[in-house]
């Protein structure tokens, strides 16, 4: 996997966790969980973001604003964001060298 994509996946997982703490925080705290490290977590998120190339980062932000998730898994040769077909040649030839975008919706593609 492209190192930049690896960082984007980690960034999205962190954003997911931060959003969950904001949206389901009360429910989770009701179950006994505590979120004292939230500020620290936001700081690590921002530190991670500085390692991502500005072009990728702004694309990530734009897609997150538009779709909720910027990076989506490719399953059975389909973009799971818009269900467009992703040619299998796409994967093997360029996956390692490039951060791939779905040609139909622009989402960043991840092969799990």
């Amino acid at each position, binding site marked *: 996997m492209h190192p930049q994509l690896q960082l984007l996946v980690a960034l999205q*997982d962190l954003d*997911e*966790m931060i959003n969950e703490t904001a949206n389901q925080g009360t429910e989770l705290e009701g179950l006994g969980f505590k979120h004292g*490290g939230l500020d*620290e977590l936001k700081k690590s998120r921002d530190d991670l973001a500085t390692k991502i190339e500005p072009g990728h980062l702004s694309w990530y932000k734009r897609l997150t604003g538009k779709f909720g998730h910027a990076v989506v*898994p490719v399953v059975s040769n389909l973009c799971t964001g818009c269900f467009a077909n992703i040619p299998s040649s796409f994967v093997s030839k360029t996956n390692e060298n490039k951060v791939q975008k779905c040609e139909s919706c622009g989402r960043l593609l991840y092969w*799990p």
Partner: protein
Amino acid sequence: MDIAEVLKHTSSEHFLPNLTATDKQGALAEMVEGLISGTQISRPDAIMQMLTSREALGSTAVGPGIAFPHGRTLAVQRLTIMIARSTEGVDFDSEDGNKTHLFFMLIAPPQDSGHQYIKSLAALIDRVQDGDLRDSLMAAEDYEGFCNAMKEN
């Protein structure tokens, strides 16, 4: 949510009756290794990273002797629950300072829109409040015995 419904997300392959690790990172790594074995999951590092961040947010050792490491990651396609036990106990930064002996690890994909995993988490936490049940779970001989104890009223 019914406990039998929750247990559909785990299996005998996702049951580690004797963890060998005694520290948090080691125990998480052992559980992630168990989670991915025999599956198509190719990014254990992403799962580890997510779980480590989650523990930095606050320890998930919230039950008496029990922890519930959890979170969502792109690395998995469906909700999977890993169950693990440690007779010796793991230092999991619990609030009461006691060691953790029982683990329910819930890993969900980001697309889990119905918050199925939070509902499963709530059902598990509610179920293990019973001290006698916790003793039976620690004593269960195998996965089947463990599940039967979980489902008993």
